[in-house]
């Protein structure tokens, strides 16, 4: 598929080949445009029985269940679940803070890998893939399409994005919640450095719009451990004021603030039924994706 293009540095063909056999399922009924492997809110022609319904004039007589008529002397129509494809919207945070990485890989690199891989997987199973880059607002937005050229556009855009500017994730998510058509899979890749309460509002908004929301919370090990030894001057990657701090002095309180934030966030994602994945950048993205896909396969069928 990349024969006419240079290889994407954020896509590993071996990883893709290992993951291609693992389907990406939606946890909620999706509203696609064509038949696919995801559950639909509508009745259709799949092999999975849904319900009996009383016959009303105009129904196709071929759908009458004659055995039911024989048992009850009433006309019933047998209905089946519909299968559809999904619209996968990848939302990548491209604010300045995503440029941080202490392990040789930055958050934006990590986000590229996950987003690229997931986009490819979704495209392979016939789902539509879109990409929204957000920072101070929605910088770029590719609506979901299910054709191969569109995937190339998505991957091109992923390749182009640069971490820059301040984070205005909440307004961007609200806007996306409104603009993306209902019942889509929205995958957010960000460090989520905003107030959990603001995030919670976004999650509630997306849930209200019946989107299946998955969040990859990208954090660097240094941000989690804060194991500095010498006095440090911290320069804000998003242009804010710098802070001079003695790690021995401020370390405890930093950890306390981080844990408060994470605990609060955990509460909100549970409340909003968000598929939340906290990722440390030293983790293998392949393992992260396997865990993600397997967990979604287990929770498939919730309607």
């Amino acid at each position, binding site marked *: 598929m990349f024969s006419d293009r240079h290889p994407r540095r954020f896509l590993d063909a071996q990883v893709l080949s290992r993951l291609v056999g693992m389907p990406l399922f939606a946890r909620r009924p999706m509203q696609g445009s064509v038949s696919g492997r995801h559950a639909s809110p509508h009745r259709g022609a799949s092999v999975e029985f849904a319900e009996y319904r009383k016959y009303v004039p105009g129904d196709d007589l071929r759908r009458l269940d004659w055995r039911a008529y024989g048992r009850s002397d009433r006309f019933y129509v047998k209905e089946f679940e519909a299968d559809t494809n999904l619209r996968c919207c990848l939302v990548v945070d491209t604010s300045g803070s995503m440029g*941080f990485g202490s392990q040789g890989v930055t958050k934006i690199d990590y986000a590229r890998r996950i987003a690229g891989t997931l986009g490819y997987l979704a495209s392979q199973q016939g789902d539509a893939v879109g990409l929204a880059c957000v920072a101070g607002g929605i910088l770029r937005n590719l609506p979901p399409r299910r054709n191969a050229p569109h995937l190339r556009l998505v991957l091109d855009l992923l390749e182009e994005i640069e971490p820059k500017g301040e984070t205005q994730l909440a307004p961007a998510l609200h806007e996306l919640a409104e603009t993306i058509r209902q019942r889509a899979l929205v995958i957010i890749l960000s460090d989520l450095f905003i107030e959990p309460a603001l995030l919670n509002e976004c999650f509630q908004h997306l849930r209200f719009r019946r989107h299946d929301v998955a969040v990859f919370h990208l954090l660097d090990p240094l941000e989690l451990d804060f194991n500095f030894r*010498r*006095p440090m*001057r911290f320069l804000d*990657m998003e242009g804010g004021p710098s802070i001079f*701090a003695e790690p021995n002095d401020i370390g*405890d309180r*930093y*950890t306390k603030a981080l844990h408060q934030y994470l605990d609060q966030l955990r509460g909100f994602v549970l409340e909003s039924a968000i598929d939340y994945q906290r990722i440390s950048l030293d983790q293998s993205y392949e393992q992260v994706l396997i865990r993600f896909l397997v967990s979604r396969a287990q929770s498939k069928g919730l309607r």
Partner: protein
Amino acid sequence: MSFLQPWLLAGLPLVALPIIIHLVNQRRFQTIQWAAMMFLLAARRMARGYSRLRQWLIMLFRTLAIAGLVFAVSRPLASGWLGLAAGGRADTTIILLDRSPSMQERGSGTGESKLETGRKQLAQTLQTIGSDRWVLVESAMNEPYELDSAAALLNLPAAGPASAAADLPAMLRAAHDYIRRNRPGRTEIWICSDLRANDWDAESGRWATLREAFLELPQGARIHLLAYPQAATSNIAVRVTDVRRQATSDGAELLVSLSLSREGDSEEKISLPVQFDIEGARSVVNVELVGSKTELKNHQIPIERSRERGWGRVSIPADANPADDDFYFVFDNPPPRRTIVVAEDAQAQRPLQLAADVAPDPAFQCSAEVVTEDQLSSVEWDQIALLLWQAPLPTGADAELVQSFVDRGGVVAFFPPRNPGDEELFGVQWQTWVTGNEHVAVETWRSDEDMLSRTLSGAALPVGQLEIGGHCGMKGEFTPLATLRGGGPLLARVPTKRGGVYFWATTPAPADSTLATSGVVLYAFVQRALAAGSAVLGKARQLDAGEPDGDIPTPWNAVTEGDQGLSTEASFHRGVYTAGDRLLAVNRPAAEDGASVVADARVAELFHDLNFARVDDAAGNLRSLIQEIWRIFLATMLIALVLEAVLCLPKAARAAGATS
């Protein structure tokens, strides 16, 4: 606070080390691009109260630990001696020890005297401070001699109690002479005294000279005063004022007069048992003491008829100061009171001779011999008590004779010659006669002391009734005892070390005055002068401690001794001694019974401009003047280190696995 190793305080700037390290550490910061600023900002908002204080506390405890270490190794002393040993160990330490009887006063609730406490404190303090050489100047001898160590003060007999008064200016002079002679390096002078006015003689001109002398010392000297100014609230001193032996119809008796004086504010009437001990025979009489002073006159104590010579002791129950609770006396047949009269005017000579010839008591043998100036060399001066001189002042060999007579303790009374010349003796010169038609009256006279004082019965001498027809002026340095109207002296005394020298401005001649016709004043004067002059002639002598008589042969053998002292210092310790054929009673000087203390401001004035420090102590004080308190600083350092460690302890391990 002072330090034994003050040079180690130079390490004090090390206390800035934690601060410097902190600052250097801050300068060595790293810069990092950081994403999770929201947590740093939150952490800074949380850095309030204890969290912020903690860093300062850690810094403080580190600083304290270093300061504690530096102070501890500097060997700090807790004391009131400001600036003590500021320059390190002294080269020479001179100790001036006041051993006077008043220093034997005990503090309330303790059996330790001021002297004992002072010696202990000095020994302990000086031993701690250390010195290369120790020199003691004690108040009896006023001579510096070297000690092996400060601790020797505790056992040295020469540092024990004595009955002699102290002479602080003389002691300081001895210390100054020692410094000038030996040229030591850094010198410290430690004075231990109770600041009694009679010992310090604060009004003496010697102090100004001393101060100048110390200021001129090139190496300087630091003077420390360990003062015991607190007087006992109640202390009674006994003193025998007169002892006479007289024959009675059935034997003999002693007539003992004594005075009891009380220190303190108490006016309570008390009955005091006074014990008389006449060579072992004891008797007690109760004396009522009212106010500050009571006198007992002529208390009769029967003795054997054959006992013409002996000694005795008067004592009262022990009180705050045991040194003034007893008094020794000796008695003997009074020596003949012989007078030499040299007079150019027969009218003056006769009254003088009569006044000297008639004994006031049958017990005394009085005789007066009239001699001319040419016969002076043939007079047996060692048996003469009084010289009455009404002639031009002697010169040459005669003057020397008179001078040596006075130096031996004799008394001379000069009356003006008819034609005064320009001769001068004892610093006094006769001026011209002043005569007039009217008699000049006596305006004032000293009735409290000396020759014109009140009689034993308390009656004043009729000096005011004297009429002076003519008087001769005098020039020189003298103390007027009576002055005429108009300010001229009638009777003056020339200060001498021993004996007595008096100058009358008129003669007993009827034309000059009514001294002869109203003979009471002249007679009292002559007899008192005779008594004073004969006091040095008797075989039994009352002596003030510390005032040895050159005429008295040595050695002295103690008959009974009050203070325990060296035999060579016998004259400084109260008691009864025999020296050759003489019987001597040595007692504290009368001035020692006065409780007045030199005022603090005056003491400060005496040492003005000198390197001087003072601390007041109390008898029986158990606390040392100085204490090494390095342990406190070491403990402070350890506590600071422990607290610093506690504050630096990492909090409970940060929640592991923040990643899920």
